[in-house]
């Protein structure tokens, strides 16, 4: 297994606030990794940096051995790193098929000659089959997340970054979406990096966790270890007097 993504010493400062502090980690091909951390830990900022939507203050990012720092977001996508947004951003006024079709027009998808067929296939893949002509305006949240994933898949990514895909969903929707993501990882051989702060769903999905707090990576390891990690527990539950006393 080779390193698909190599993040080295990435720091992002907004004025006096350091949103991401000296983050370094690697992702291997085919891995399913999650970034865990409470709200404001710097997860989404890190995502935005990886995908070119923000530039890091310092640090380097190598994807497939190539330096991707300072590439425009669409160029990052065309090198094989696609993302979804936490707040879904569909193209309003277009139907489901057209929403995916836009991404089928990216240079990376140039080998898919029949764009309509490809977009329709992808909709079926994410469980929105047969609803090509439906407008996006009336789509429930869970389906919008699926649409986001279909659009990301249209660019034929090697690495898929999912930004809190379960946020705002009910438990049955979460279970179905988790199944979809698991299937994509297995069948499409996708490398996936997922942000989440819902511990239960998260731990059941990923095989490796990068835990963040206040912009720093505080622990890396398999989920079983992470849930026992003192720093992680501290970040989530907080330090108590008793914990101090017993320690």
């Amino acid at each position, binding site marked *: 297994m080779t390193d698909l993504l190599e993040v080295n010493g990435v720091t992002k400062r907004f004025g006096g606030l350091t949103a991401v502090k000296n983050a370094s980690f690697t992702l291997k091909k085919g891995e399913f990794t999650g970034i865990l951390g409470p709200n404001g830990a710097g997860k989404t900022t890190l995502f935005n940096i990886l995908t070119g939507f923000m530039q890091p203050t310092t640090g380097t990012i190598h994807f497939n051995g190539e330096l991707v720092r300072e590439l425009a977001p*669409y160029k990052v996508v065309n090198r094989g790193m696609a993302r979804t*947004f936490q707040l879904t*951003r569909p193209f309003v006024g277009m139907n489901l098929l057209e929403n995916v079709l836009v*991404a089928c027009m990216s*240079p990376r998808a140039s080998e898919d000659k029949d*764009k309509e067929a490809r977009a329709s296939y992808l909709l079926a893949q994410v469980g929105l089959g047969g609803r090509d002509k439906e407008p996006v305006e009336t789509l429930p949240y869970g389906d919008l997340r699926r649409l986001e994933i279909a659009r*990301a898949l249209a660019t034929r990514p090697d690495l898929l970054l999912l930004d809190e895909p379960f946020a705002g969903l009910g438990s049955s929707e979460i279970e179905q979406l988790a199944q979809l993501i698991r299937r994509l990882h297995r069948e499409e051989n996708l490398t996936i990096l997922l942000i989440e702060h819902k511990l239960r769903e998260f731990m059941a999905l990923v095989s490796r966790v990068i835990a963040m707090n206040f912009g720093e990576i505080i622990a890396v390891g398999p989920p079983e270890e992470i849930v026992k990690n003192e720093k992680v527990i501290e970040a989530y539950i907080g330090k108590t007097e008793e914990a101090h006393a017993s320690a």
Partner: protein
Amino acid sequence: MKRIAPIDIAGGILVVAFLALLPMFAASNYLTGVLTVCVIYGIWASSWDFMSGLTGRENFGHSLFIGAGAYTAGFLSSIWSANPWISLPLGVVIAIAFSLLVGFPTLRLRGPYFALAMLSASAILQRLCLIFWEYTGGEEGIYGLDPLMKNPLHYYWFVLAILAVTVIALTLLAQSHWGLLLRAIRGDEATCQAAGINVTFYKIVSLMISAGFAGLGGALYAHYQLQVSPPLFSVVVSITVIIMVYVGGIGSIYGAAVAAILLTLLTEMLRGFGEYRLWIYTLTLMLILFFLPNGLIAPLWRRLTERLR
């Protein structure tokens, strides 16, 4: 991608046939002349709608491209005595050159930069025409262009044919995958980026296409008036074109063309009202835009033909 509905094709043919036959009923060079100007406004309005209507990036200086095409014709035909037919392709080329000049630095940015840059560029060109009056004729402009055709009726038909080709070409483009991307850019640039689309590239090329047709319209106008003058670059022309598109129904292209023809006709017909003309015209526009924010022509046509689709 999307097919154009048969009813739209039928409607288009009817309108063009009606416009072509209109001067035959009331044979007067005056009417033919008015209709020629109407149709040229149609070319300007539909070309504006293609870029700005689809991508949502308002261009407040379409007159830059119109004037560039017209002055190209002026210089070529009157000063360098070139064959008048050369004006048309070269008017297109020069207008496209100007679109690159303004589009490259400003279309990469989000926000109002593009609209403001277009507005100032057209104003600057208008001033330059006055400053370099030795070459451009200053206020007077350039006179004595050769007509493309001797018979005004033939020229009207020719311009009408060009409008038809313009609307068909732009509509086909707007309904292709290309047009889909332009509409996506209007929706959300960040999502387009996340979909791997080079947003700036598509905006610039669509502006080039828009400018090319506007420049063609400018050259046609110059060879109808047989003179060009600085007001062609004025913001009044740009705003007039924008209003026409809004009345037509933004993003529809054919609506812009029809609205341009009707509104130009309206201004002519109101000449009898003398100084009240502007009042009536402006009031009509305000009522239309107030009660029909989506425009008049395209929504009306879609309503009328709903059952036939």
